[in-house]
């Protein structure tokens, strides 16, 4: 499904990704964990072609997107939904218009049908009452949930989440986790999630990948990761548990 082969990326002289290899299974939830500033967001942007690697190959659904031009890339991206770390809502549009945006752009649905889907998605993230507000009037956590609703509005085949639960209270965190699991079950989509929340990672992930010093140092089911004897993985799990 998604294949990253020997991806290297440097910003100026700082090496962020270093010959990274990663296979992401289709129709599964893969969670990527790693240090802050370790390059997780950069990795996610490689998958959707926002950043091009210095070397290596990225293959999405059997298409090599490494050197694809913008127009073809846009075709590939139609399979994707993405939640940015800072939500990246369009601040010239209301919450409702934000969620409706991908529907307006890529479907021929009527306004009524679109409104229905928008309400439904906002309901899922518990925000049906802010539909007419502007993003600037929302809290950080609310914005993130609107971003989530926008990312899944088209029920895409691949959804990338950059820290969907960071900045939410424990109750909301749990409900977002539940939402992710339920949505994945329903749509059979491929989910790639970046998370710092080790506990929820182990509950929702089918597979966990650990990014350390520009490489994936461990991949496996939550159980495999838990019993890993990689020293960094051990330390990471222990530190986050406390």
């Amino acid at each position, binding site marked *: 499904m998604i294949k990253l082969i020997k991806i290297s990326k440097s910003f100026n002289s700082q090496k962020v990704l270093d010959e990274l290899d990663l296979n992401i299974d289709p129709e599964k939830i893969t969670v990527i964990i790693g240090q802050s500033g370790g390059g997780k967001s950069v990795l996610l942007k490689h998958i*959707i072609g926002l950043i091009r690697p210095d070397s290596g190959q990225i293959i999405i659904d059997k298409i090599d997107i490494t050197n694809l031009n913008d127009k073809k890339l846009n*075709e590939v991206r139609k399979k*994707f939904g*993405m939640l940015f770390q800072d939500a*990246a809502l369009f*601040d010239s549009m209301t919450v409702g218009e934000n969620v409706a945006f991908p529907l307006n*752009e890529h479907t021929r649905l009527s306004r009524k049908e679109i409104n229905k889907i928008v309400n439904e998605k906002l309901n899922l993230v518990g925000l049906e009452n802010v539909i007419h507000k502007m993003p600037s009037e929302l809290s950080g956590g609310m914005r993130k949930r609107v971003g989530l609703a926008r990312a899944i509005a088209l029920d895409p085949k691949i959804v990338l989440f950059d820290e969907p639960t960071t900045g939410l209270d424990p109750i909301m965190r749990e409900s977002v986790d539940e939402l992710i699991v339920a949505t994945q079950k329903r749509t059979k989509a491929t989910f790639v999630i970046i998370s710092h929340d080790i506990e929820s990672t182990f509950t929702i992930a089918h597979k966990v990948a650990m990014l350390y010093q520009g490489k994936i140092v461990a991949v496996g089911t939550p159980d495999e990761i838990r019993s890993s004897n990689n020293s960094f993985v051990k330390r990471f799990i222990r530190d986050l548990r406390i």
Partner: protein
Amino acid sequence: MIRFLEFAGRPLVFFIEECGRIMLLLLSTISWMFRPPFRFRVIFKQMEFVGVNSVGVVLITGAFTGMVLALQTYHGFKMFGGESLVGSTLALAMTRELGPVFTALMVTGRVGSAMAAELGTMKVTEQIDALNTMSVNPIQYLVMPRIIAAILMLPVLTIISDFVGIVGGYFVGVNLLKINSGIFIAKIIDIVDLDDIFNGLIKAAFFGLILSLVGCYKGIYTIGGAEGVGRATTQSVVLSSILIFISDYFLTAVMF
């Protein structure tokens, strides 16, 4: 010596690169213009922003430009008894130069800077990336409507500015300075050509292209957070204004 070349060469290289990137942005804007989807609503929204919402500024600047011009030329022409030429001088100056240039400068300040700031903010808050992830080309969605709107709206604003400028000048010349109203208008009709107006409008369209292109360019190449947005805004106004004056010279040389 090499160090001197580096010192002197870097801004030059930077400038050439910048021109190249602006031209490439223009080219890809043109290519995206002919490709579906056609989002007329987005264009209309920009036309409202660039055109309709700039009317107030343009009315005030246009009217006062005409008035002060009438006042100044009157004192000049009076010295050799040529007061009757105030109207035509005013009308010629308004239609050929002051209408298009002042309108473009005001719109640069109001709209060009806003474009740079808006797109710059969208860039640094990853909204442009978000557009990309949703398979919407940012040039087609953000840049192209702004450029089209500016090219279409600047001539309309300019003709309004021309008109209120001449009316303002008429008011000062006829009502305050007591120039004969018949002669004032007759001289305008006598000396101003339709070509003067049209060439002024063509200039205006060109200035619209410049200010929107530069504004968008500075916006989508913004880096460095809020500070970067501020820098992009300032630079877009400065660069647009300079380019407007430079291109005005060359357009005038070609047209008149």
